[in-house]
């Protein structure tokens, strides 16, 4: 698909009309030129918004989240490592990572800080566990 320059009307040699060789070669050159310039413009818009540092940080954050989730699953689901005996965490671990073959759990990492906050849950387990009947 050949793009045309924005703001210019479609040329007469677009479509099915038959033209001379010179005009068609000129047209194809112009079309390729406008396509390249359009791509350049889109790329500059993208890179303008998403500069290299920002993009790099976001990509690394994405990879870190994935790696953390996968390794936690491997640790808890395959190696059967135990991180806590508190009931709530076991429920979560079972739900999130423990059943590696049947469940998918990484929804927990959609939200901000959850790469850390998921484990942060366990901070409050001890006092709440003792107040189990209250909830």
């Amino acid at each position, binding site marked *: 698909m050949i793009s045309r320059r924005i703001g210019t009307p479609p040329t007469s040699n677009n479509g099915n009309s038959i033209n001379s060789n010179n005009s068609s070669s000129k047209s194809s050159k112009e079309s390729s030129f406008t396509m390249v310039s359009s791509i350049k413009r889109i790329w500059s818009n993208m890179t303008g918004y998403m500069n290299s540092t920002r993009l790099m940080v976001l990509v690394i954050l994405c990879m870190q989240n994935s790696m953390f989730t996968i390794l936690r699953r491997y640790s808890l689901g395959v190696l059967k490592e135990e991180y806590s005996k508190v009931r709530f965490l076991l429920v979560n671990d079972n739900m999130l990572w423990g059943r590696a073959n049947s469940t998918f759990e990484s929804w927990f990492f959609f939200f*901000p800080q959850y790469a850390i906050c998921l484990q942060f849950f366990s901070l409050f387990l001890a006092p709440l566990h003792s107040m189990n009947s209250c909830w």
Partner: protein
Amino acid sequence: MFAIFLAIPCTPSQYELLLVAEFIKIIYSVWMINSTVVCTPLSGEGDDEGVMIPRDLSTHLRYLVSTSKKMVGLALIYGAMNILSLISLRNISAGMFTIFAQTKIITTATFSTIMLKRQYSWTQWRALVALMMGVLLFSEPIWGEASVSVENGNAIVGTVAVLVEVTLSGFASIYFEKVIKTDPLQLGIWERNFQLALGSFPLYIFFIIGNGGGTAGFFGGWSGMTVLLSFLAAAGGLLVALSIKYGDSILKTLATTSAIILTGILDHQFLDGPLTVAMMIAAVQVILSVLNYTFDATPKPISTADAVVSSPPPKNQNQVDAENQETEQLLRRV
């Protein structure tokens, strides 16, 4: 060799893992703070007024501790969020919790509009809602795991708890961004990380002691995997702060949300996790939503936080003098 290193079974405490992660964050932040030139204004009169003098590290760290009130408050908010999640998961099913939890994307954007005066186009709002739906669809395999409420649970309490939790989450994200970008103290990202880690540190120690050191006792059962996870957890905290500094809370949410695709693929590839057709469709939906949000061409005004970040930092007197001298030397040469 690496596989053997990772495969040693162990039973470390969850709290210890996080404590070590916070410790790594503190060490790294202090190292980064030390590597930057720390200056303080000289409280003199006349010609000395406004001149910046170097400050030693210990003095600066003491200053950071004394001004860490906001970050300690943020750590407490995170704690409250976790308690609320706990209450919610005791009263409603994981599937219901997941559905409600996705509204964090929207609450974050809403607080961004309220607190940072950012304006999002309709295209971006639509993209965020579409993203939320895509993520929900991607987590479809866990929907049918349990009924709406758990045994002896109160569905209303659980729902209210998760809604308050998602509201707090949106607030905390934007508050952190606001503190980093618009706080009058203008502390750097490493200084804020230092304060946040410092605020979390005593809590972990308290709970390690309260929990009796976990199943393996105090600092027992550590493996290569645990160490690796600690480093990853520390890196996660630092990366979240960096992504907020160089981007914003919404972009950070987009990055963490996009991670679900990569996680799903890796999970399926290495851990035999599910990857259904519905999940693949949801993955495409998530990617398209992220692209729609990111490359929305609607012109929008610059918010307060963005204006602060994009404007260059004020120069101190020494810098101005040095620049003037350089200019004079250049003129003399000409």
